[in-house]
């Protein structure tokens, strides 16, 4: 039996090998045909617009690999084996008179067309499979790169000695030394009114009420509103400093502080509530991250902990479910970025998602543009391409949960369910009737699909778009239903990240192209910011200095996460990382002054600028670390420096030497942020609602993409009186006022906003209904004052000062009747002074 079986097998084997060798011969011929007849034509006529080499993929099509050709472009597969009709490439070559003609320079010879015809009928053999390329080496000298100022450890330079009486804090001594060095003298201190108004706006984003203004200015000088500048200056500085410290502490303790400074951070974290791009689908749950950030600033969460939570909150050790849920919500930082959710190629989408996460993380915390190294070694900074893929390995091993519905976005994911873990729901409860109505909607939608499918099976024609709509309706109502328990109680879901069950091995990609993989790269961090040979996760976790700064409460010092995200977060948040503390100290300085010590706040690399006061920057970074990474403590120290309390007055000699005020001889006058302009209007009109709204206003806009289910005018017209930080933040569709006054679109990290002055802003202030309504409300407040005090009150309320004699004369001439008061109030709102701080 065995012998017979073997005999049969040998005979069959011979036949099989014979057949195989024939097939092989045929395959070799096919390949020769492709190489001699097809590839040269593609190279000559098509690569210019459709290849990786040219960097172009017109119509989404590339023809330089087999996979790309099969995948095709926007119009479907370019080549379908043995089907001339379905091969879009062949149809285009035929030059039929339907506008679908390739190559654009002229029809190919008939012989060439015959070759393509034969090739496709052969089965379109194409040997250009994705091959593993040889290892890519880097020419970057990391050791030399470490010498750059930003990668040096923090210096411990003591504040310069001085005999002058001007400096009152260490910050002032650093500033004064630079002023002296450049022959500059500081201008006078700001007046109490200016200082109080400045403090209110810079720390809370709101103006002081006339009563608060009066209280604090009177405490800052003997006789309010009548004292001369010199008298203010002559007041003992210690006493003034104590009063100011009290005011600063009061403002920092206010919940309004977190709303403004959280908003600053959201610019950096490119916070938005939609995906952006062509589809621009709404993130219904991004608001949880927004609230997390506001609370973190109000609670003065240590910044190193803030970093760890945003990058790896889901992996941090916990004490309670509430803490766990908050940590998961913090990882929304990695999930809220812009995404091309309409992308068909899942691997390309995933690569872009990871790229966006790397770009944001490294720019936000390290002010380093690591994403430039996706395709090649960084052109300016010592970051080899391998470093990018070492980080990519960490993010590739991470699941990003950002939600969306499959029927509305090709690349949708689930969210994270935090029901019962502590956070409050973002939607009101449903009663039995409402829940039943939702169930009915879902069932109706499912029934509509069933009916349509029956028709299709019966041979009837059903419009595909209609079927898509039914599916979208069903998924939407199903999702809406799943947002509640069967008793109508809302479930708590959030965007965020989770580790994969296993790490994904990552290859370096030549030119960043998925079909050009080279060597595997071990997960790790940036070489230039790590001790030599300690950049991989494996080496890093064995390093004693790294272990010294690991997260408190870990089960052990050798504990490691599956993806390496925890280790990445710890590495960034370490006090030994030379960039982290410098970058955030510089951001805080920027938010206090309107300009950083390093003006390129998001780029500390060679393409960025060098610090104007390097020792001061290091001093601030060191102080931040000493104060347990307390942002409030750093703000307090800056606000109480004499440098920060300078007036913004012009001084010709100083201006001649330092026109851009790089050395801080005066305070920078600056326009308020868009949110502060709106909030200030609401505040002075008495209309501002300081309560935090439940969830997001986008709840009313619905699931789906802007322009499909969600209508742009609905978002732009959302009308409420809450602070601007709670307004809908849809990419490309900002509320009108925010857009007009330069609120960023949140596609990229924006550490420094642009400030434009356009006629549109003036026209908006003069004609917009919102501004007019606030003017009427202000005039109502003013009218409640005794007639003799109305003018003063209107100025105090809006500009934080009394009118000048000339203003008084002009206004009195203008105000002939009550009906003109709203117009006067609007005129004040239109002034540069209202929307700027000195």
């Amino acid at each position: 039996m065995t012998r017979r079986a073997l005999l049969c097998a040998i005979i069959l084997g011979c036949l099989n090998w014979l057949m195989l060798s024939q097939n092989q011969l045929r395959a070799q011929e096919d390949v020769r045909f492709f190489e001699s007849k097809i590839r040269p034509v593609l190279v000559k006529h098509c690569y210019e617009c459709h290849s990786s080499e040219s960097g172009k993929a017109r119509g989404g099509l590339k023809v330089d690999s087999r996979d790309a050709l099969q995948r095709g472009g926007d119009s479907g597969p370019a080549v379908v084996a043995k089907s001339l009709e379905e091969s879009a490439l062949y149809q285009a070559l035929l030059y039929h008179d339907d506008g679908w003609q390739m190559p654009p320079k002229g029809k190919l010879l008939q012989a060439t067309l015959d070759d393509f015809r034969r090739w496709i009928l052969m089965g379109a053999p194409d040997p250009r499979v994705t091959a593993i390329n040889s290892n890519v080496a880097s020419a970057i000298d990391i050791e030399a790169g470490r010498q750059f100022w930003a990668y040096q450890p923090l210096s411990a330079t003591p504040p310069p000695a001085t005999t002058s009486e001007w400096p009152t804090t260490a910050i002032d001594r650093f500033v004064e030394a630079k002023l002296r060095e450049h022959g500059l003298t500081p201008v006078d201190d700001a007046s109490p009114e200016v200082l109080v108004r400045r403090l209110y706006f810079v720390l809370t984003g709101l103006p002081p009420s006339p009563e608060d203004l009066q209280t604090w200015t009177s405490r800052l000088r003997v006789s309010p509103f009548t004292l001369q500048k010199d008298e203010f200056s002559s007041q003992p500085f210690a006493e003034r400093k104590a009063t100011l410290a009290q005011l600063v502490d009061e403002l920092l303790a206010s919940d309004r502080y977190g709303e403004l400074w959280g908003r600053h951070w959201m610019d950096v974290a490119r916070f938005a509530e939609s995906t952006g791009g062509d589809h621009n689908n709404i993130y219904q749950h991004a608001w949880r991250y927004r609230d997390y950030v506001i609370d973190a600033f109000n609670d003065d969460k240590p910044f190193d902990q803030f970093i760890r939570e945003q990058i790896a909150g889901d992996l941090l050790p916990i004490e309670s479910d509430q803490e766990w849920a908050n940590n998961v919500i913090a990882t929304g930082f990695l999930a809220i970025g812009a995404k091309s959710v309409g992308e068909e190629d899942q691997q390309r989408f995933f690569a872009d998602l990871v790229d966006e996460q790397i770009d944001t993380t490294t720019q936000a915390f390290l002010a380093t543009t690591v994403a430039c190294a996706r395709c090649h070694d960084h052109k300016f900074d010592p970051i080899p391409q391998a470093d990018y893929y070492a980080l990519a390995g960490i993010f590739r091993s991470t699941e990003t949960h950002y939600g969306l519905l499959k029927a509305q976005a090709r690349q949708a994911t689930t969210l994270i369910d935090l029901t019962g873990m502590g956070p409050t729901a973002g939607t009101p409860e449903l009663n039995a009737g409402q829940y039943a109505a939702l169930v009915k909607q879902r069932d109706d939608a499912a029934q509509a699909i069933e009916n349509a499918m029956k028709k299709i099976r019966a041979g009837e024609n059903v419009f595909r778009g209609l079927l898509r709509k039914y599916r979208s309706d069903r998924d939407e109502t199903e999702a809406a239903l799943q947002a509640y328990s069967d008793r109508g109680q809302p479930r708590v879901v959030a965007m965020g990240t989770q580790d994969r069950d296993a790490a994904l091995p990552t290859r370096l990609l030549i030119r960043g192209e998925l079909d050009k993989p080279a060597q595997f790269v071990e997960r790790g961090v940036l070489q230039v910011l790590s001790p030599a040979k300690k950049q991989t996760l494996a080496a890093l976790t064995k390093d004693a200095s790294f272990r010294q700064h690991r997260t408190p409460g870990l089960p052990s010092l050798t504990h490691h996460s599956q993806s390496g995200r925890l280790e990445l977060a710890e590495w960034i948040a370490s006090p030994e990382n030379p960039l982290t503390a410098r970058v955030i100290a510089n951001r805080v300085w920027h938010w206090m002054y309107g300009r950083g010590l390093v003006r390129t706040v998001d780029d500390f690399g060679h393409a960025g600028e060098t610090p104007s006061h390097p020792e001061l920057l290091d001093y601030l970074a060191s102080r931040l670390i000493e104060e347990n990474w307390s942002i409030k403590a750093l703000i307090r120290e800056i606000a109480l420096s004499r440098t920060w309390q300078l007036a913004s007055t012009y001084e010709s000699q100083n201006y001649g030497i330092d026109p851009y005020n790089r050395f801080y001889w005066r305070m920078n006058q600056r326009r308020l942020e868009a949110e502060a302009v709106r909030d200030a209007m609401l505040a002075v009109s008495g209309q501002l609602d300081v309560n935090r709204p439940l969830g997001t206003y986008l709840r009313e806009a619905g699931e789906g993409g802007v322009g499909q289910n969600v209508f742009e005018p609905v978002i732009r017209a959302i009308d409420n009186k809450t602070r601007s930080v709670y307004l809908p933040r849809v990419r490309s569709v900002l509320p009108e006022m925010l857009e007009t006054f330069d609120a960023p679109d949140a596609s990229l990290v924006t550490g420094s906003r642009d400030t434009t002055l356009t006629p549109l802003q003036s026209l908006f202030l003069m004609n917009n209904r919102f501004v007019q309504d606030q003017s009427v409300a202000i005039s109502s407040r003013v009218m409640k004052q005794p007639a003799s005090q109305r003018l003063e009150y209107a100025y105090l309320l809006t500009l934080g000062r009394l009118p000048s004699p000339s203003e008084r004369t002009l206004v009195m001439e203008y105000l002939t009747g009550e009906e003109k008061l709203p117009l006067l109030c609007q005129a004040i709102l239109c002034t540069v002074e209202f929307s700027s701080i000195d």
Partner: protein
Amino acid sequence: MRSWTSAICLLALPTLLHADQKFVKIQRVSGNQVAVVPDAGNDGGGAMGGGRRRGGGAAPGQPGVAGGRRGGAATTQPTILTISPATKITSAMRERRTFEFRVGAELAGGLKHRVFQEMKTPLPARIVSDGNQITEINVIISETDINQSTTTSNGEAIIAVRPKRPPMKRSSAAGEAK
């Protein structure tokens, strides 16, 4: 019986590996070894893997694909393939309307991924090879989102998953040096 099996595996292996790409059904995964049989009902719509399903038609283009089906007994007997760690293992799907074969995201853990460990029925897949080396395995699974979680291609919208529990805080040495 074992001799028959060995003989058939011996015969089928070169046929299978010669192909640039081949549609198979994965029957079993054990360590780095995969038992596959050619998938006659899933020819991929052609060597391109991009065409429409043509029920029962000849597999166009690729001799290897055709060879697999012609193999008679080989279609029912599994072939054992040893997969190198460098092989890229991804999810894949058939487009609902056009049956176009689409490659999805990489499966974390490769052959240790739960789709293989918890597999109850054979998994249709495409094996891409370059010479004698298998470079890619694209497995058709119903879970098609980039997290391989529970959003299915059937349109079942499961909107959220429970998070994985992190460790509890301990008063360990970690971080105390601060």
